[in-house]
């Protein structure tokens, strides 16, 4: 790398850092940006299950909700410090994820996605709605820890945690575990014949996925400053589970950078649309367009959901690499390689990134 190359990349990282820091100055927008960071974490969590082990989970909102539930109740009802609450939420989600992983050892493919679908709605209707855990259905109020009470401050916490999770995920794929998971995904029996402990690695993947989702859940509870099970009950809960699948696919399965970008995009999309459509002349125009005028009706989130689902179909049909595939020349340049639009096929651990999902 030349001197100029180092300077240019350093400048790029600086710009990225500044852009990441900007929402701190806002209040409402920071709240949506922290939702973006939380969705990005959920994307990374689901990416471990879908992208690395090749199983489709349709119940990941259950882990998010469990993390939020445990964190909120430990902090608000048991009066323990917030980091204890978040840690317990992580543990609870990881434990439940291991149970689901045990099921995944015997049941794979379509049937597993079915089990996860039922898991998500069953845990929401049974556990999440227990009156003792939801303050008699009125929601558990919780206060953010001192020094982090503002929306902007909490946004920074979310970003730092996201970066940590991102690094953890990078270490996972670059390590022996990542290679083992890839081998298991490609062919379980061959992997076993080479001495890879399929059982423990699969359980590890599920536990890690659950732990990250639980962490995201804890941040989510503090972000909204109230825990209510309504976010996870079925029309919304199912929509949330599907949203996580959408952002994983749109980001590019197995591609952590793409998943994070997609997560942030879907996190702030609703707010951006709200701002855009709130402008006077935009409203005048949109109200005369047949389908779009429904945006001002009862269902605010439906336009974002339409954009998301069309992006999903577009990704599946025309652009299987997703956002991550598009960003790949840039991300390779940022990590010190030459800028090439069409790289040569490579082998080794990095091949985890772009490989497809099987079932």
């Amino acid at each position, binding site marked *: 790398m030349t001197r100029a190359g180092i300077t240019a990349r350093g400048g790029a990282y600086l710009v990225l850092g500044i852009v990441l820091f900007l929402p701190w100055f806002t209040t409402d927008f920071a709240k949506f940006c922290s939702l973006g960071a939380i969705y990005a974490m959920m994307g990374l969590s689901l990416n471990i299950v*879908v992208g690395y082990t*090749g199983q*489709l989970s*349709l119940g990941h909102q259950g882990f998010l909700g469990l993390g939020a539930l445990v964190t909120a109740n430990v902090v608000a009802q048991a009066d323990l410090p917030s980091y204890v609450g978040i840690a317990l939420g992580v543990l609870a989600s990881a434990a439940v994820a291991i149970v689901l992983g045990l*099921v995944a050892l*015997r*049941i794979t*493919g*379509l*049937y597993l*996605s*079915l*089990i996860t*679908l*039922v*898991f998500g*709605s*069953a845990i*929401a*209707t*049974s556990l999440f*709605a*227990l009156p003792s855990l939801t303050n008699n259905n009125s929601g558990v109020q919780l206060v953010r820890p001192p020094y982090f009470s503002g929306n902007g401050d909490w946004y920074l916490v979310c970003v730092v945690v996201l970066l940590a999770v991102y690094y953890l995920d990078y270490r996972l794929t670059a390590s022996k575990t990542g290679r083992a998971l890839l081998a298991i995904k490609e062919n379980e029996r061959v992997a076993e014949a080479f001495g890879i402990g399929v059982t423990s690695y699969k359980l590890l993947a599920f536990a890690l996925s659950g732990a990250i989702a639980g962490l995201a859940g804890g941040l989510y509870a503090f972000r909204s400053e109230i825990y209510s099970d309504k976010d996870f009950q*079925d*029309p919304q809960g*199912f*929509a949330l589970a*599907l949203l996580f*699948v*959408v952002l994983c*696919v749109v980001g590019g399965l197995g591609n952590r950078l793409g998943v994070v970008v997609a997560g942030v995009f879907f996190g702030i999309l609703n707010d951006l649309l709200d701002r855009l459509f709130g402008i006077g002349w935009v409203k005048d125009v949109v109200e005369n367009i047949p*389908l*779009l005028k*429904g*945006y001002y*009706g*009862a*269902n605010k989130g*439906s*336009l974002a*959901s*339409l954009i*998301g*689902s*069309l992006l*999903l*179909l577009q990704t*599946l*049909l025309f652009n299987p690499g997703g956002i991550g595939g598009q960003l790949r020349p840039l991300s390779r340049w940022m990590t010190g390689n030459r800028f090439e639009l069409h790289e040569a096929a490579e082998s080794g651990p990095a091949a985890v990134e772009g490989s*497809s*999902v*099987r*079932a």
Partner: protein
Amino acid sequence: MSVALLGHAATTAVPLAFDTQLKIGQPLILGIVQGAIYGLIGLGLVLLYKSNRIFNFAQAEFGTIAGLCTLLALNGRLFGISWHMPYAVAAVVGVLIGTLTAVATERLVIRPLFNRPKVILVVGTVGVLLTLIAIESLAFPQGDTLPAFNDPKQGAVTDLKDPSFRVGFAGYNVSWAQVLTLIVLVALALGAVAFFRYSRQGTAILAVSQEPTAAQAVGISVSRVSLLTWTLAGFLGSVAGLLALQSTLVGPGIVTGTALVGGITAAVLGGITSLPGAFLGGMLVGLIQTFAAANVDFRGSQSVVVGLVLLLVLLVKPTGLLGSEA
């Protein structure tokens, strides 16, 4: 589903510890009717599983499309022209549009992804589901109540003024819509059996599902069979949706929310490759659900019990009750 609630015949006088009517009779009727809808959804899922080896997560949403389009056909207004169609015509329009949605799904999403991994196809159906729900909520922000087919207020096809009638069994009110649901289920079940046993098209579908390459070798067009299967599945989903939505507030994603998980569970419980199994599974899931709701005093017992049943079936007998392969 309009819950035609029980008439209390004899129970008011002596407070019994175990109310037979409440705990057994009512769940029995509701369960059978609910199970009929699950069975219809499950039947479509089985058909698509046989031909494409996937679950179609958009299956129940074809029903919502049918319901919304029926509503629109009953009392429509577009570009200043308004119309009122008779109920039968509106229902046909709704089912037609629901079926066309399935056909479009096959053409635009399934066919291009045909040779990709199955998970990608499943995610494709999820994408279709989300797109349909989003379009519905943009086009019908408020939602409306779909009247029962014999509701005297709107486009009744019969002279049955009373939307419910009293059946001689333990003094329950059963609505005509519920009776219709059962009749349609039986008719479609017999029709499906006849179609797959006696017609060339039905045999072709079975042939492709068993061995696509060999079927192609004897001159069956796999892509035409796929289109036919999706048409049938769309029709079944639309009919199921219309029946499920009788005198219900129709909003975006309603049939998916109420009947998709039940339908999938029904298909798996009966054996994902077995058509009669889907009906049997539907009945069982419907009954298990309503009995659990009536007898297990625990929040969300319906979905928990169905989840447990599904888990148990998959762990103990993954082929289901009547299926031959997992």
